[in-house]
């Protein structure tokens, strides 16, 4: 597995784990208290920062586990990255219809902010899956 593929796996796993913890902790409060009272801003910012930090840590672990292949990138990695990002961009465009609809229907900020975060999570996951499939099955 190339260094970039390991990084893609690390990013996808981190995104799924961190967002899973975030949504489990925040959405579990829905129904118990009014959504206007749920404190989601700090956990949301923490989740975003944790995703960045943990992904960097994943790359560092990948580099330590195979130092000779660390930071090696070639044209195939670049093409697969571009392909995955274009798939992710399309997914983000489609997913953004959700917060847009919520805003138009005048839902609370809580739902709109979380829908935007969900759109980012889904887009990042689809982008990572597209890259991994391209690495595994061919490109």
């Amino acid at each position: 597995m190339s260094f970039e593929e390991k990084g893609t796996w690390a990013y996808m796993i981190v995104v799924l784990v961190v967002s899973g913890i975030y949504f489990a902790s925040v959405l579990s409060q829905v129904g118990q208290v009014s959504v206007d009272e749920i404190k989601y801003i700090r956990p949301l910012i923490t989740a975003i920062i944790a995703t960045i930090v943990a992904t960097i840590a994943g790359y560092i672990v990948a580099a330590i586990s195979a130092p000779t292949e660390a930071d090696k990138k070639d044209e195939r990695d670049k093409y697969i990255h571009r392909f995955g990002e274009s798939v992710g961009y399309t997914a983000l465009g489609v997913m953004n219809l959700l917060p847009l609809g919520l805003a138009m229907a005048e839902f609370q900020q809580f739902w709109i902010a979380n829908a935007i975060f969900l759109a980012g999570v889904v887009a990042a996951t689809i982008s990572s899956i597209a890259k991994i499939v391209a690495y595994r099955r061919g490109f």
Partner: protein
Amino acid sequence: MGKPTKVTNAIRALRFANDEMTQAELADKVGVTRQTIIAIEQGRYSPSLEMAFRIARAFGVPLDEVFRYPESEEKRRTKS
């Protein structure tokens, strides 16, 4: 994505003919990752023209001794 390439190659045979050159050694000569050499050998990736030339140069042979592209059905019919 995922479309099987029609380009075939003789990289594996050429590696063995060149003192059993490893995939890692070829990757170093060409300046790519070992995984890219594996993907090309297995027909999972068609290299750019520039990379194809670098691979041919690493073996010291012309490009068409490394990579082949099958003739189209139409051309085959015209010949026969």
